[in-house]
């Protein structure tokens, strides 16, 4: 089978089926359920993109909410009607204030600015390892929040930007989701992806084989940040609000949980974990409201996480994809051994 044909079968077909199902869903589901569906999609985007950073390259980053905040603000500022901008955001440069950008361009810009921030921050910070990196990226959330609160001329400070145009819909989410999955898939099975995995498995060995470790780390950090920025924009225009506290540590934690439960490095695993976790939180919410025990759903999820970590340390779906991946690696070894 030729490569384009295989690609068509493996990717275009599922995308088409997904679109058909989604169309059916828009006809049959109520608006509330459709909103939930969009949150599920955004969380999958976030978990799968965080998986590039945390899963593929093994960088333990908690900084996704920081990049979402950046992306969310950038997108929101760009899509806002020019008249509101000049009235509300005094310090905005006039080039930005005068124009109202289309949504697609705004989302892309949000992602790019987030990625740029990731590069700037990543070059020094990614020299850190393990726990230290986790805490430094966590600090990033606070730093970004600090800026959002303290630049009222651009962000309206603690108030945030409310009343954004509600342009996010299931199709936008689906489009970004497909692009995210496609990118992750391509990255994972490219030489870049193998480089990332080599760094995760043994950084020293990778470096001695001539892998540009620092560059690859920054690249994987920025790639994750790009999708986080886009997702932040989608989120902001779904709830029509972006505020300094929109994306908190708690969200960062939930995303990490999705990646870990999904089996670090597995795209399908992260996506399934994102769906399960988002839906279970959603289903638990009415119960917790009925019982008057607000926070109970989070406790249940957290307890569940601890139980999984104790009893299934390699993640709930830990074996879902690594098998495919193992077979792939074997094929490569085979190819190398036969001249």
């Amino acid at each position, binding site marked *: 089978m030729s490569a384009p044909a295989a690609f068509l079968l493996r990717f275009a077909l599922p995308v088409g089926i997904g679109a058909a199902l989604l169309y059916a869903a828009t006809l049959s589901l109520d608006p509330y359920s459709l909103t939930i569906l969009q949150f599920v999609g955004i969380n999958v985007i976030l978990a799968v993109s965080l998986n590039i950073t945390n899963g593929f390259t093994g960088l*333990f980053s908690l900084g996704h909410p920081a990049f979402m905040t950046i992306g969310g603000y950038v997108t929101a500022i760009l899509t806002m009607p020019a008249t509101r901008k000049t009235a509300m955001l005094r310090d905005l440069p006039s080039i930005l204030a005068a124009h109202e950008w289309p949504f697609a361009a705004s989302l892309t810009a949000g992602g790019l600015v987030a990625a740029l921030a990731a590069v700037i921050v990543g070059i020094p910070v990614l*020299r850190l*390892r393990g726990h230290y990196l986790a805490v*430094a990226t966590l*600090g*990033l959330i606070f730093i970004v929040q600090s*800026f959002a609160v303290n630049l009222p001329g651009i962000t309206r400070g603690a108030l945030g930007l409310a009343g954004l145009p509600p342009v996010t819909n299931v199709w936008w989410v689906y489009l970004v989701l497909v692009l995210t999955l496609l990118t992750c898939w391509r990255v994972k099975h490219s030489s870049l992806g193998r480089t990332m995995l080599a760094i995760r498995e043994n950084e020293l060995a990778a470096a001695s084989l001539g892998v540009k470790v620092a560059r690859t780390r920054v690249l994987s950090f920025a790639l994750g940040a790009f999708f986080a920025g886009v997702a932040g924009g989608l989120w902001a225009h779904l709830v029509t609000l972006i505020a300094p506290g929109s994306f908190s540590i708690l969200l960062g934690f939930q995303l*990490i949980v999705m990646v870990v439960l999904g089996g670090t490095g597995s795209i399908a695993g992260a996506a399934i974990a994102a769906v399960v976790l988002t839906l279970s939180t959603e289903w638990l919410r009415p119960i917790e409201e009925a019982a008057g025990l607000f926070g109970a759903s989070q*406790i249940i999820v957290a307890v569940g996480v601890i139980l999984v*970590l104790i009893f299934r340390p390699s993640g709930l779906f830990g074996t879902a994809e690594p098998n495919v991946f193992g077979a792939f690696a074997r094929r490569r070894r085979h190819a190398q051994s036969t001249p």
Partner: protein
Amino acid sequence: MTGAYLLSQIVNGLVLGAMYALIAIGFSMIYGIVRLINFAHGDIFAVGAFAALGSIAIAALPFPLAVLVVLLAGALVGLLVERAAFRPMRGAPQVTGFIASLAVAIILENLAVMTITAQPRTFAIPAWLGALVPLGSISVRVVDIAIIVLALVLTAALVGFVRFTRTGMAMRATAENYGVARLMGINIDRMIALAFAIGSALAAVAGLMWGAKYGQISPLMGTVPGLKAFVAAVIGGVGSISGAVLGGFVLGLAEVLFVGLLPSEFSAFRNAFVFAALILVLLVMPNGLIGKSTETRA
């Protein structure tokens, strides 16, 4: 700017530093013995604040007795958390414990919100603690002096315990090498639990101090001071008790002076400043001010 203003800022910095130091000690001890950054540590600090509120405002205990209650409450919660969440996953990759500690933090916070609501509470202190005493050109409250003194006394007691007692020696041995410690006949589970108990007790006392100093507490109060205390522990050198204390005071002073001495536009960036400082320290001195090499530990 007057000398008196500077002096009062320094006192405030030392008080904040004393509290950071007590929380940071727990981070450092727990990291030193199980290589875990315990995210729930800041919530134990909050538990301490509420235990203090309960014993002072509700049970009307005298202040020194309240300190004892808070120490015990912190130790108890620390033991419980270790037993329930961390012991079962000992030996797992570090990231596992880190995520589990985030989960514990979420559980503690939500339990607190469910039972006592997220509403901030006023934390009243006895009149004698609020009294002013002259110090050079300024007057400071008794509570400020009490916080600094209590922090130093507790730290000295802990250092003495770890350096000079048989159990303290066993804790140091356990932190270095589980397997060989067991070959010496040391029950490492007990040593790890002890580190959690001591670290948590100190964090809880810091919670009491926080309430006494700032007059207000809430169930979610622990997150930011907890993270900053971690920064303090890193600045001092993770794993070292004296490093944690030094880091705590350095950070407390730096934060207060940053806010107090720079133009007011900057003061809103204090959290950003603290984390920028962390990143800087990590990059320039990865082992902290007096830490040993963490290459094999990190």
